[in-house]
């Protein structure tokens, strides 16, 4: 069973994956602005994941 830290990281990861999937779909369909915004959203989710992982490690990395 994942602990709290891993749960938060998995949440961010799920958000990022969904945003990338919809963003790439939007880009493939030619809806550029929405696609780019979704990719930025996914990127921010991964940034939050990295920052949270660093905190979970006790700031070791």
């Amino acid at each position, binding site marked *: 069973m*994942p*602990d*709290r*830290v*891993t749960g*938060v*990281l*998995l949440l961010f*990861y799920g958000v*990022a*994956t969904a945003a*990338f*999937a919809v*963003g*790439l*779909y939007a*880009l*493939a*369909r*030619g*809806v550029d*602005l*929405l696609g780019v*915004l*979704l*990719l*930025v*959203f*996914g*990127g*921010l*989710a*991964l*940034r*939050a*994941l*990295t*920052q*949270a*992982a660093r*905190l*979970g*490690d006790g700031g070791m990395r």
Partner: protein
Amino acid sequence: MPAETASKPSQQLARRLRARSAMLRCTLAALAAWIITLMPLATSGRSSALGRTLAVLSLGPGIAGAQLIARNHRMARHVGVTAFLAVSVAAWAWASKDGVLATLDIFRSMLGALAWIVFAVAWSHPWSVGDEDLARAPEGETSGLKPRRRPPAYAVGVAVLGAAAALSCLAAPWFVTEPSRGVLAHAVATGCAVALITSAATVAVTAGRERKEEGKPRLPIDRRVVNTMLFMLLVGAMILAVFFTSR
């Protein structure tokens, strides 16, 4: 006692199969990669004689290399990996010159990429070493650095999910409607795939760490994470605005 004697032949068979599993795995992987990506070059009417010959010849080292694993591991790698890849690349180069590669469809290309990934995994160390040899090898000789702790089972699941998500990203650009945007879509998708697989590895590694819980467990959220989440809210609001105004 009778149960032990009854299980002996099956145990022997299992041991014999395990000893040959590396050879079998590498042979099948090479055969699959050859059938999907090189056999069409050998059978295509547009290929030149040299192209066909190279495509057929490439099967030789692919199969022969795997048979050498038990006897001479170094030679097996030279033949099964280096020579096989060298002849295969030469066959592809010649096929490209003949214009055969342009006729390949997307499905076969993706299947071919998958087959070569399986080939690489099949030959990866120490899987390609016979299991009996691996059991006899001194500790540290075949497995490199020993892990300090074992990650939980779900960490492997997270890593596998990350790899699947990254592969899905790489598949998305093949469905772009305008060909002129194809290269850009591939570049963006590759960036997404790298980001996803790197983050999956981070999650998997973090899941394996032992944390000292002192008092009430805390969420890994500080001011910087909150700032990033505020940015996410802002971008999310923009996404909703764009989505509802463009309908």
